[in-house]
């Protein structure tokens, strides 16, 4: 199960899906809005999603995780709209019999979510105009900038 939230992510219903008497391990990842990125003071973030495709792609990622590791359940969520510092932008939880599988599946899902979901963020800075992360680099310095939709370039967490 993967959900998009326009309001603050409530983890209660997400966690409920992970409960299992067979599970000995739970790993939860939360991506928080932090107050800086690449040296600039950030005041807020705006997330925009191509929701239909993001949900399709997210379900593919969760299915891949279930196929690759012996886990009980995996659940994710992503926020859209304007977020303040400290708010949860992304949430992934995995339950499994053993902790190695829970860690690996959670980390895989997060890497792929950042790499593949059609979701964008606009950073609102304290000292300069807001900009869409990655896009402005591409527009202004394409010759020196070769990330090709990389997961890490300009990524937040």
């Amino acid at each position, binding site marked *: 199960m993967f959900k998009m939230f326009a309001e603050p992510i409530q983890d209660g219903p997400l966690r409920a899906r992970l409960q299992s008497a067979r599970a000995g391990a739970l790993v939860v990842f939360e*991506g928080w809005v932090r107050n800086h990125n690449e040296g600039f003071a950030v005041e807020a973030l705006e*997330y*925009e*999603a*191509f929701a*239909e*495709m*993001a949900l*399709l792609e997210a379900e593919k990622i969760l299915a891949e995780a279930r196929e690759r590791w012996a886990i009980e359940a995996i659940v994710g969520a*992503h926020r859209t709209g304007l977020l303040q510092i400290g708010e949860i*932008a*992304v949430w992934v939880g995995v339950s499994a019999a053993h902790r190695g599988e829970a860690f690996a599946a959670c980390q895989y899902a*997060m890497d792929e*979510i*950042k*790499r*593949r*979901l*059609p*979701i*964008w*963020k*606009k950073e609102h800075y304290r000292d300069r105009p807001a900009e*869409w*992360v*990655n*896009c*402005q680099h*591409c*527009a*202004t310095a*394409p010759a020196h900038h070769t*990330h*090709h*939709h*990389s997961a890490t*370039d*300009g*990524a*937040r*967490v």
Partner: protein
Amino acid sequence: MPEITIKYFAALREQAGCSEERRQTAVASAAELYRELQAEYGLSLDIQHLKVAINNQYCPLTQPLQNGDTVVFIPPVAGG
């Protein structure tokens, strides 16, 4: 001429000034469509940094367009 729906997100949405439009066009591929839009709106993103999804499926930029297709040009993503 085929009629195409185009959805815009993030920087492209701001530059196009709308989030969705329908247009009749004679272009042969997604790449040609982007050049048409780029000329019209002054879109700043170079096509080499975009992916394209047609009817919610990632496709090659050379994909021919069909009447009724929904096309989305996808800037470098930054979720999470």
